[in-house]
């Protein structure tokens, strides 16, 4: 039976749809209302409040905390300053990805790592002969993601101090309604947004304070369906949707390296030894076998496929995460990769998908074909390779003066 998160008494009261799913052993709302579109719209036009407590959270403290993390993760931890957060991957000896997450340097010798899968044993195994205390604090903290253009103003109206100039990927300790919390300007939506970590016992107080003032900022609780659409628009890969942890795979074909996942930028080959370094160096030299790129699916193509059945254009109502073949030709003879997630993007008015393709087919602007199944019959619909993120508003990393427009600096080729 899934466990309630520290916010459950409140999320349950809001969840009129009764649509729940299991996330890392916890109950998480798919959508709070019968349909999720309003929740998605909140991410891009107001603020959405996600309960992300099921994330695994670890505290690492001690003289060797940075050394341990530098052995484990692909980013250069020595370059992460106190108060800073970095996004990073971590791999096994073969350079295959285990997981990704954010790493916050809370103090000189104090880090907080988030992960999608249980990671305590991996950290402990790698901590041999090091002075570091590793604590799984997952159940001790509730976590909320407050994401959207109004999130800064909303938070600012609630905190005791000033967060208006908190930079992108920075953290600060604050108080709301007398409750201490750690605010991290990070998120999984590619928008302006924050993640709030609060001791479990104070979770409900924090939620109540946000809800009380949220309406003034077009804030609403949002579920996993809205989150998945937003993160696809943001071009953020997700474990169990776009890739599988090598610790949970059985076959080599299921394993991927950060290079294949578009996370090559997180791999700092030049730093001292880290797990997987040798294999990743070799892969870098060789060139990865696959590349992660976005595609925009040609709507006329989808429409023409449906018209063969005398049906009008139909687009999926929610995002999808089923592996779907991608071909270099409309006859589906030459498969060159697969799409791993896709969604109709209401803000872009485009049908987009994240794909892993052979490098020779992954150049921006390339034409590929994605398989579509209509009434049990398969078609190939044309699509164009584009850069990700699909949607990348300046406010994501901007300051309080950045115009709050739906402007987009990412996207089409």
């Amino acid at each position, binding site marked *: 039976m899934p466990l309630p998160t520290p916010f459950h008494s409140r999320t349950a009261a809001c969840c009129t749809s009764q649509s729940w799913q299991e996330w890392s052993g916890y109950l998480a709302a798919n959508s709070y209302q019968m349909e999720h579109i309003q929740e998605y719209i909140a991410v891009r036009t107001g603020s959405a409040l996600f309960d992300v407590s099921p994330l695994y959270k670890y505290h690492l403290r001690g003289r060797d905390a940075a*050394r341990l993390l530098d*052995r484990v993760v692909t980013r250069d931890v020595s370059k992460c300053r106190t108060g800073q957060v970095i996004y990073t991957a971590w791999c*096994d*000896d073969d350079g295959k990805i285990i997981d990704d997450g954010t790493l916050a340097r809370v103090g000189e010798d104090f880090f907080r790592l988030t992960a999608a899968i249980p990671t305590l044993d*991996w950290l402990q*195994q*790698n901590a*041999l*002969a*090091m002075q570091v205390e590793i604590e799984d604090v997952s159940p001790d903290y509730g976590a909320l993601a407050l994401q959207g253009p109004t999130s800064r103003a909303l938070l600012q109206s609630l905190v005791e101090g000033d967060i208006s100039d908190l930079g992108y990927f920075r953290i600060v300790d604050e108080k709301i309604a007398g409750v201490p919390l750690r605010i991290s300007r990070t998120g999984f939506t590619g928008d302006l947004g924050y993640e709030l970590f609060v001791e479990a016992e104070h979770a409900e107080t924090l939620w109540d304070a946000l809800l009380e003032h949220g309406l003034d900022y077009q804030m609403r609780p949002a579920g996993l369906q809205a989150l998945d659409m937003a993160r696809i628009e943001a071009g953020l890969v997700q474990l169990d949707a776009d890739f599988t942890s090598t610790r949970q795979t059985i076959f080599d074909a299921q394993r991927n390296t950060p290079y294949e996942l578009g996370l090559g930028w997180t791999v700092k080959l030049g730093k*001292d*030894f880290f*797990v997987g370094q*040798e294999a990743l160096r070799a892969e870098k030299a060789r060139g990865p076998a696959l590349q992660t790129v976005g595609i925009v699916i040609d709507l006329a193509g989808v429409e023409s496929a449906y018209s063969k059945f005398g049906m009008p254009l139909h687009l999926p109502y929610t995002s999808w995460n089923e592996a779907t073949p991608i071909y270099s030709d409309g006859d589906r003879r030459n498969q060159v990769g697969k799409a791993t997630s896709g969604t109709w993007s209401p803000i872009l008015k485009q049908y987009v998908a994240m794909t892993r393709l052979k490098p020779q087919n992954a150049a921006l602007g390339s034409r590929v074909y994605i398989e579509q199944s209509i009434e049990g019959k398969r078609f190939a619909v044309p699509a164009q390779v584009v850069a990700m993120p699909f949607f990348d508003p300046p406010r994501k990393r901007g300051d309080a003066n950045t115009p709050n427009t739906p402007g987009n600096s990412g996207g089409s080729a």
Partner: protein
Amino acid sequence: MANYDILIVGAGHNGLVAAAYLAKAGQRVLVLEKQPGVGGAAVSEELSPGYHFSTCADGTGYLAPEIQKDLGLAGRGLSILPADPVVFAPLPDGNHLTFWRDTARTAGEIERLSKRDAERYPAFVELMGRVATVVGGIARITPPDLPDVGLGDLRAMLPLAGPLRGLGRKHVSDLLRILPMPVADLLDEYFESDALKGAIAASAVRDITWGPQEAGTAYTFLYNWALAGTGLFRSAGVVKGGMGALTKSLAAAASALGAEIRTDAAVERILVEAGRAAGVLLAGGERIEAPLLVSNADPRSTFLELLDPTLQSARTVQHVRNIKYRGSAARIHLALSELPEFTSLAANEAPSRLCGAIQIAPSLTYLQRAYDCVKYGEFSPRPYLDLSIPTLLDPGLAPDGHHILSITAKYAPYSLRDGDWETRREAFVKTVLDTLAEYAPKIRDLVVHQHVFTPIDLEERFSLPEANPHHGEMTLDQFLHMRPIPGHARYRAPLPGLYLCGAGAHPGGNVTGLPGRNAAREILADKR
């Protein structure tokens, strides 16, 4: 400064064997030993004036005959004094069992316990001898490099073909059936006498932490049989001058062949440059460089202390941490004013029956009970005692008329649940002497000196983690391609330029010299 082709960390007998073979092949070799003397766990020490004890290994060891011959050890002071009987096992009811090298003569002794067992004994010896030959052959090869997954690569199994050839189809299936068995079950198939089974099974568990009913103890049993060289399940006799004389002769051979040996030279770190072993850093700060490095230290120390564990692959670290060590024997040495009397033996018979191994393990049940305690972190209230009185064959080890009695006492778990070895030491020694006194009642009156090595003492004094005598348990799961860790059983460490030559590598522990010789063979193959 001299230039070396190869540095060897540790002058245990395996380090010395490797040094000698490598020097013989023209390599410039330097051996670095942290102790003031060579030999590792194969040493003799004058623990009390006039009494020379083989502190750890005693008896003849299992030093492979081909190594003795290749290195001309006979000409360098190695003299092995064989014993017959192989085992004398006193029983609590005043009876006893003696195992002679001669099968018929032993069957005659067994008849006093069971006529049926006596009849079956020759067939048992015949089959075990045959199967053990294969185990002995396997000990001499470099293990196949089995991939992590599956047995797909049949070519990797080729090295096993040699030892298996000549065994015949029937006996190959015997071998495969027997190896993973508990030695107790194997013996149950042949014998009914609990005392007989106890006497045969004891040597199988002497050096491991399992009892006779644990799976795979048949393998340990056959390993001993294969290397003992007595045609039976354990060796018999002593090295003249004690076990230290064996390693001294090895050191002499290595030196004569051109190897240099430095004692009091503890290696603190193995130096790595550009992803290769590049030399060593000594405790005093001295750096010595060489393109090849061989470690005679155990795998845990080698990988997790001499090498910086934080710079090694996660896989290596995990595999090394998973090696089972957990020693469970203490060693007690007694200096005696005269030969002890055993109740079950007439005085005039004593010298001729006591010169082999003396086993106090009067039944299989007794052995298993002794083992049961170790599972719960307790030492055995009725321990299995493995004794030797080397002065019967080599009187020079003690002053005139005096004797030395060395005891390996089991089970004495490295980690005690209650208390520690500092506080429980005396209690354990009392248990051992009480047990011994049941068979040799006057033993306490004869003791002139007593030296006790608890597992903690053995660990500290001999650099043996968890007091494991074999640098990792000799169990079936840590054998052949799994020894010391999967993927690195061919003497080559994960770090290029680093090799392993100690008991932690295939085939494993005891004074066989085989890990050292096999490693030298592989090193030379790589150099060609």
